[in-house]
C-alpha cells in the first residue's frame, strides 16, 4: 500500500479530484497549506504600499492506493495538475505500513 501525497496549485483541485475519481480513487484528504520550491514568494503592491508574501498557498491532496495502482494514480494527478509553469507542485509516494478503518476495524486493503 502506498500513500500518494500531492502538493498542487489551489485552482487545480477540482481537476485533480476528477482525475482521481476516474482512476478509481474515491476517498481523499485535502489540506490547505503553503510552501515554495523554486517558485518565489512575491510582493503585492497596492498604491505604492508593498505587502510581502513569502509562502505561496497550495493544496495538499492525499490518497491511499494499492501498490499496483501507483503509477496510474500518479499519472492521473500529474496530468491534471500540470500547467507547465513554475509552482505546479510535487507528488510524493510514501510506503504505508498499515491502514485501519475506524468504524469497522478492517485493515489493509479492505480499509482503503
Amino acid at each position, binding site marked *: 500500500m502506498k500513500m500518494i501525497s500531492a502538493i498542487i496549485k489551489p*485552482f487545480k483541485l477540482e481537476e485533480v479530484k476528477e482525475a482521481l475519481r476516474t482512476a478509481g480513487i474515491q476517498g481523499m484528504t485535502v489540506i*490547505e497549506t503553503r510552501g515554495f520550491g523554486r517558485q518565489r514568494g512575491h510582493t*503585492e503592491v*497596492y498604491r505604492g*504600499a508593498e505587502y510581502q508574501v*513569502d509562502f*505561496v498557498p497550495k493544496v495538499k491532496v492525499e490518497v491511499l492506493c494499492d501498490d499496483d495502482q501507483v503509477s496510474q494514480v500518479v499519472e492521473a494527478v500529474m496530468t491534471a495538475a500540470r500547467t*507547465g509553469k*513554475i509552482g505546479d507542485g510535487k507528488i510524493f509516494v510514501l510506503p504505508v505500513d498499515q491502514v485501519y478503518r475506524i468504524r469497522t476495524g478492517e485493515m489493509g486493503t479492505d480499509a482503503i
Partner: protein
Amino acid sequence: MSGSASTREPAPEIQQLKAEREKLRLELASGAGGRTITQALSDAIDHAITGVWDRLKPSEPVALVAIGGYGRREQCPSSDVDLMVLHDGGDEVGRAAKALFYELWDAGLQVGHSIRTIKEALKAAREDFPAETSFLTSRLISGDREIYQSFADAAMRQSRRSPEAFIERVREATSERRTRSGDASAELEPNVKEGRGALRDLETIGWLATVCGPQALPVDAQTLERAADHLLRVRSALHFLTGRHADVLLMQLHSQVAELLGMPAGPAGADSGGPGQQYFAAEDVLIRSLYEECRSIAFALDHILDPRYKAAADNLPADLREGRWTPDAVTDFLAILAAGDEGWPAFRILDQSGALIRALPEWENIRCLPQRNVYHRHAVDVHCVETSIAMAGFFEPGEPEGGPPANGKAGKRRRFFKSEAPEEDRIPAGASRPGIDWEALCRTVAGDSERARDRLLLAALLHDIGKGTAEDHSVRGVRLARSALGRMGIPLIEKEDVAWLVRSHLLLTKTAVRRDVEDESLVVELAETVGSTERLRMLYLLSAADGLATGPSAWTGWTATLVSDLFTRIYHLLDRGELVNADASRVAHTREAELRSALGAFQPALVDTHLSLMPRMWFLTQDIHALIHQSKLMIEPPDPQELRLEAVPLDQPDHWEVTVVAQDKPGLFSKVSGAFALNGLNILSAQIFTRQDRVALEIFGVAGHGGKFERLQQDIIKALRGKISLDLRLAQKRSDYAGRVSRGKQDAPQVRIDNGSSDFYTVIEVHAPDRVGLLYALTRALTELELDIYLAKVATYAEDVVDVFYVRDLDGQKVTEPEHIREIERLILHRLDRD
C-alpha cells in the same frame, strides 16, 4: 448503571422512578409540555429519595435539600440530581448520607452530593458562585424544616447583602459561560443549557430577581415562560435520545429530536421574496423555534446586565422604532451599523420589537434562518449583522504600533473568534510571513473607500438576504436588496452599487481559489466585470468581511493571500486602464463580435478557442481587417515544423507587410528577424502576439528590394532547423553595409527593465539607433538569457528604434532577480554596442 451491587434488587422506589421515566418519554412524544415533564420527573425523584431515606435516616435532625435545577423542579431525564444533606453536627449523619448516595448511585442516578452544616454551606456560597446560585432555588425534600429554613434565610441574606457585587459576579460568570458555550440563539448546534439565550440565561434572570429585586424586563413573563417550557422539552428530548446528560443539539440529532417532539414541516409564512417559496423541514422548524425563544431570553438578560441596552432604547429614534424610513431614520440606522459591535443593542431592540421586520419586510427571509454547512457558524441574519460589524471594523483605527495595549483590551477593532486567532497575527514585524498581512491591506483599502462606507455597510447587511430557497442567493438577493433599499429611499446610484455588490459578493473569493490568476485574460475579464477601482475596493472589503463573519475556516491567511493577489492584479489593470477602460472594452467586444461573423466558415469550436486565447492587446491594436486576415492565417494551429508566411505590398514602394504564423519556440522571433536582415529587408515595425496555445503571430512592416519572400521563408525554416547560422551570415552582411548606414548624431542606446507596468510580464524597453540586424541582435540576446517573448512592439522613428518586449522566464514567471535583470541589461547594451 454502576452494576457494583447488582445482586441487590433495586429499591421499589427506584423501580418506580424508572417506570415513570419511560412513561414520561411517551408523554413527551405525545406533546406534553416541558414543565409537565420536568416537574413530574422531579416529583418522582423526590418520591424515590424520600422512600430510600426513610429507611436510612439517622435520629439526628437532618434536612434533605434540593438545590439548583432540582430545587426548581426542572429535572431533565439525564440531569444531575443536585442534593444537599444539611445537618447540625452529629456522628450518624455522614454514614447515613453516604449510604443514601451509594444506593442512589447504584440505581444509576447522577447525584451531586454534599454533606454540610449551615455554616459550611454559607462558606461554600461565598467561595463558589455556582454554589451560591444553586442555594437561591432550594427546596426541602424531606427532614427537618427548621434547619432547612435557617439555611435558606441565611443564604438569601448573605447574597442580598450586596446586590451590586452579586450583579458583578453574575456578569462575569455569564460572559465567561457564553464565550465557552456559544450562542444558542444563532448557532447550528446550540447548547440548550449553557448557551447564550438558553436555560442558564433564564435561571440567571431568576437569580437577579431574587437577589436584587424585581427587574424591568423588555419581554413579558408569559413569553419567557413559554420559552422555558420549549427549551425544557428540547432538552428532555435530547436526554431521552442520547441517554446521556447531553446539552448540545448536534446536527445529527436534529431530525430525531424534531420527530420526537412532533415538529411539523412545511412552507414558511408570508413569502416576501417573490418566486421561490421557502420550505422548512422539521429539523429547521425545530432550530428556528429554538432561535426565537433563545433570542427573547437573551434579550431579557442582556437588558439587565448590559447598560448599553437601556441607553440604546432611550436613544432610539421614534421613526426607526416605528419602522418608518425618513431620511433621519436612514442616517440613524447607518450610524447603528457603523458603530460595529456597539451597535448590537440597538439592532437587537429593533429586531426583537418587530420594528426591523416592519421597516424591512425582506429581512423576514433570513431571520432565524439556520445555515447547514461546514463553513457557516451562525444563522443567516446574525451572520449578516456580523459581516456589517466586520466591515465597520475596517474603518475603525486599528491597533497602535507595538502591539495591543498592556491592559489587554484589543483596541477598538474586535478580534473575531479569539480562541482561533491565526498564528500569523502574532508574527513580529520583519519576520517571514506565511501569508499576506491582509488586515493591513484591508485597513488601507478601507481608508481609500471612506466615501463608500455607507454603501459597504448596507451591502454587508444585505449580502445574504437572498438565502433560504433553492434559487441562487446572489441573484435572489439582488431583487430583495433593491426592494429593501427602495424602501429606505436610498438614491439610485448608491442603490445600484449595493445591488451590484450583493450580486457579486462571491466573485473574488470563488475566482481566487478556483481559477488561475496568472492568466491575464481571466484578470482582464474580471476587470471588465468589476468595471472600476472603486467597485473593486468595495468588493474586496466585502469579501473579507463576509469571510471573517462566516467562521474561522472561511477567511484564513490562506484564502486572504489568494484573494488579495487577485485583488491587486485586477486593481492594476483597472488603474492603468489601457486594456480595460470603457473604450477598450467596447472596442474589444465589438471587434470580437465582428470577427466571429467574419470567421463563419470555420468550425465554431476553433473560432471560440482562437478568440478566447488571443491576448487582449491584439484585439485593441489591430484594425478589424487585420484581425480578420490574421485570424484566417492562424485559426487552425500550424504543425510543429510549419511556417506560414504572407507578404502584402503597402502603398509605399518597396514596403511590405509580412505576417508570419508558426508554433512558438524559443528563439523564433529572433530567427525570423535575422532572416529578414539576411534578405536585405529592413524591419521598420513589428508586433508579436502569442496565442495561449503557443502559436505565435508576428506582423512585420518591412522595407527593402526585391520582395523575394519564398527565399525569406526558406531562410527562416533553415534557421529554425539550425541549417544556417544567422550569426555568421549577418556578420558577413554587416561588414558589407558598414559604410552605408548614415550615422548622424546618435543618442546612446538605453535599456529599461520594468516590472511595475504589468503583473503578468516583465516589460523590456530598448531605445537604440537603427542598424541592420538590430532586432535580430536584441532578440538573440533575450533568447540567450532564456527569456520567452509573449508580446512585442517594434517601431522605427527616423533613425531611432523603440522596441518593447513583454517577456517571462522559462519558468513562466516575471524576471525579478536583480542579477538576472542586470545581466539582461548588460548583454543588450553589449550587443547594441557591437559596432
